[in-house]
């Protein structure tokens, strides 16, 4: 099935990462740049990330849980309002795991990742999230195409009826 029409390419896409620790951002960015084709955008501030997301059609967002100005759950809830179909991933320490699990349903999280994470796990989770997003996008395109095709069909039909009946 790999590479067939209904399995979109999932090793590319725009990934937004938010964490208040610069070290985390730097190491994630260099790891992902090395291992994947994603376009990685990192932000120390959730507010700045929201500005970016408002103006850019992103594919995936990953956020730290504990941040000073806005916590990860509130941030991802805002992202959901802006772009409901973008899968949202939260990084959480063991202490906050319960809250993260609750948020899965409350703010519709795609997945949580426990700190410290394994890079292998991270790669799989990102890949699956990207794939989900690409599937959703493709589905929306197809639905639009179908609607357009039905519209054309109806127009054509009307035209024929008008001319010949």
């Amino acid at each position: 099935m790999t590479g067939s029409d209904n399995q979109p390419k999932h090793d590319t896409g725009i990934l937004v990462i938010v964490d208040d620790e610069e070290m985390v951002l730097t190491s994630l960015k260099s790891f992902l740049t090395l291992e994947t084709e994603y376009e990685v955008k990192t932000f120390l501030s959730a507010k700045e990330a929201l500005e970016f997301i408002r103006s850019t059609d992103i594919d995936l967002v990953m956020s730290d849980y504990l941040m000073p100005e806005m916590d990860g759950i509130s941030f991802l809830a805002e992202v959901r309002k802006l772009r409901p179909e973008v899968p949202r991933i939260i990084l959480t320490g063991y202490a906050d795991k319960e809250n993260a699990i609750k948020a899965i349903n409350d703010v519709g999280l795609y997945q949580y990742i426990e700190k410290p994470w394994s890079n292998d796990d991270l790669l799989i989770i990102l890949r699956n999230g990207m794939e989900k997003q690409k599937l959703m996008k493709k589905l929306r395109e197809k639905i639009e195409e179908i609607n357009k095709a039905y519209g054309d069909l109806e127009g054509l039909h009307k035209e024929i009826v008008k001319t010949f009946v």
Partner: protein
Amino acid sequence: MDQSPADNKSDTPVVMIVDDEPMVIRSLESLLQLETEYRISSYQSPVAALDRLKETPVDIIVSDFMMPDMNGLEFLREARSLHPDVPRIMLTGYADKENAIQAINEVGLFHYVEKPWDNDYLKMVIRNGLEQRSLRAVLKRRIRELDLTTRRADRLHEEASLLQDELDQARGLLHELLPGSLPSHGPFELAVHFQPAMQIGGDFYDTLPLAGNRRAVLLADLTGHGIKAALSTALLKFAFSRFSGKDVGPTRILEGINSVLHDGLPSGVFAAAALVVIDIDSPRYHIANAGAPHPLLLRRSSRKIERVFAEGLLLGVAGADEFPDVEVTVVEPRPGDGLLLMTDGVTETELGDDRHYGDGSLQECLRAALDKTGEDLLRALESHRAAQRANQNDGDDVTMLIIDYSQDRSTP
């Protein structure tokens, strides 16, 4: 052939669990039974699990890695070839983790989960796997639907172009039914303006010689458009042409056309028509009208426009027995007079906002252009009308026919 989740007996997803340790199966079963709605199908033997997969698919597979008769990789590879769209999750001990990671691409693993697993994490992974599977299934169905729709549209386009060819032929035929030019008859000069609609409309005009140096001029508007209008126009032409050279008046001609239209077309085609018989020697007009707009007599010497009343039923509506008497109005033209016939496409020209060109605008323009005759007058009327219409293309045929009488011309 893979089945989508919706094809299962119920919409509840089926989770297959394969692990050689009964303890693991029991704990996974109780987790999923307590905390999810999924149906569970568990196997201690991968071989038995494959037998089941050959019979019926499941929605997601969770398999152990280390098992005695077949390891998790081999099992999932087989499962993948049976049902490529079913997501595969592997449970691995820490020692086997490297193998599992290497196998991600080899067997197209959706996810691996390390033992001992975290229940919440595993639930989340299963949920995501199921969601992905159903997204893929929906997408597949949409692609199929799009394909069908596109093919239907292609077929319809083909049919439409065949029909268009036929319509073009009909249009050509219709054009041949109309006289190329209208000759003058002694002091009577005829001119016509015919503006066909985009679709085939039903306007028709023709003239015939009658016995006793007379000339019949017919302007008709048939109901309907397209092929049907083209066919009924041919029928009308035939009905009219039978009177060529005959010693008949407007009454007989309209009665004759009425019978042919009424009896000849079972589907009911009607025609509004104005008929003028010109008595060239007297000179006189015998005017009959079957539901067409009243002809206008342009008295140029006194600058008056008179409506010529003559009432009559639309042709084709009633059979010969019920067809009412045809009223004939006789008009004596004075030199310089014009007699204008038209179809309702003229006054019913749409101007937008539900307004129509109407009688008022027509008369206003006529008054301004009264000194023009023949084609010059018709051109003036047409440009006045065309300048005001809402759409570039008329929805109905528009035909105007004028008979000008001048004493200057000598009878040939």
